[in-house]
């Protein structure tokens, strides 16, 4: 038993002696995101945005190369958001009938469209963008650049929450924000995408339409 343990220690000792530790600082991207690329022993810090690598010199070199390859400057984009409520009468200035594509209107059963809010949101790639819409709605967005050439394509995750409501449960009252719209789509720079949400099997309810125009900034 002692001999086996000694043999194990002696055989592992040279490998352990070869292992090194190196701290790499991420410049543009969050270290947390870059660390997902690695397939070796590592840890990251949000405070210093660094990744600590541990392994053989070859493995550390390969990991450093991967980090440098993907630690590219983050792009900035601007989003023009128009939130339209279908099925609700609206005063003349808020009438959004002309904003909704005619072909879509012919498919939908709503006759009235009102503009609840419009906003311009600008932010960095991978950041969580948040904005209050229409008084009691909350919009959250995150985008990533999928293709830069020939035309910039963004992958955008959109989440719009409704006003907070009080729900009674057996444990007490809980405040929740119902999700009105939650979708992920790709949009080219300069393109407008129509996002819609309505209740399933709804008889007289209204629908939420979001016109999202993205623009990648230089």
């Amino acid at each position, binding site marked *: 038993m002692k001999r086996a343990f000694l043999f194990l220690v002696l055989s592992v000792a040279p490998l352990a002696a070869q292992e090194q530790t190196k701290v790499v600082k991420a410049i543009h991207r969050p270290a947390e995101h870059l660390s997902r690329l690695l397939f070796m022993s590592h840890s990251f810090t949000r405070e210093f945005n660094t990744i600590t690598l541990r392994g053989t010199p070859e493995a550390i070199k390969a990991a450093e190369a991967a980090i440098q390859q993907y630690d590219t400057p983050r792009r900035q984009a601007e989003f023009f958001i128009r939130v339209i*409520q279908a099925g609700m009468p609206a005063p003349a200035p808020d009438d959004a009938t002309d904003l909704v*594509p005619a*072909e*879509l209107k012919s*498919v939908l059963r709503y006759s009235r469209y009102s503009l609840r809010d419009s906003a311009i949101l600008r932010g960095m790639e991978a950041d969580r963008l948040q904005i209050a819409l229409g008084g009691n709605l909350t919009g959250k967005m995150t985008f990533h650049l999928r293709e830069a050439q020939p035309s910039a394509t963004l992958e955008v995750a959109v989440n719009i929450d*409704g006003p907070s409501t009080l729900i009674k449960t057996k444990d007490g009252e809980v405040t929740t924000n*119902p*999700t*009105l*719209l*939650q*979708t992920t*789509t790709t949009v080219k720079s300069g*393109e*407008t*995408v*129509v*996002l*819609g*949400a*309505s*209740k*399933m*099997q*709804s008889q007289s*309810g*209204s*629908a*939420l339409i979001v016109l999202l125009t993205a623009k990648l900034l230089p």
Partner: protein
Amino acid sequence: MKDRKLRQLLSMLPEEEEIARRAARARRRALARLEEPEPARRGWRWAPAAALTVLLVASAAWVSRAWRVDPLVWTPPAPRIASVPAAPLAPAPAPAVRKASRRAAPGPRQERLEMHLVLSDGTRVLWTFDRKFTL
């Protein structure tokens, strides 16, 4: 005089014959200690094992006899198969018409349905049907 007699008695050694006898006795005792145990006593070592074996065999026999099911004293009669009637059987009564339930059938368990449309001008539409949607 007495003192000299006492000294003589104390300093007197045993006789040669007595010494030889005592030596022979001591040798016999020593040899007896070195002798192997008697063969008759060696058998006692296996006695508990033999007794345990006998006990196990006896208990196994008792258990097998207790578990054995005795044959039934009374044998049930063979089943009799009824003869088929020659005349046709009367038709079964029509099932009672159940009143249709007013409640609609439960809908699909789908909580979320996403629909992708592309309009003729190229505008893409992503429409989500959500049961929990409230506005």
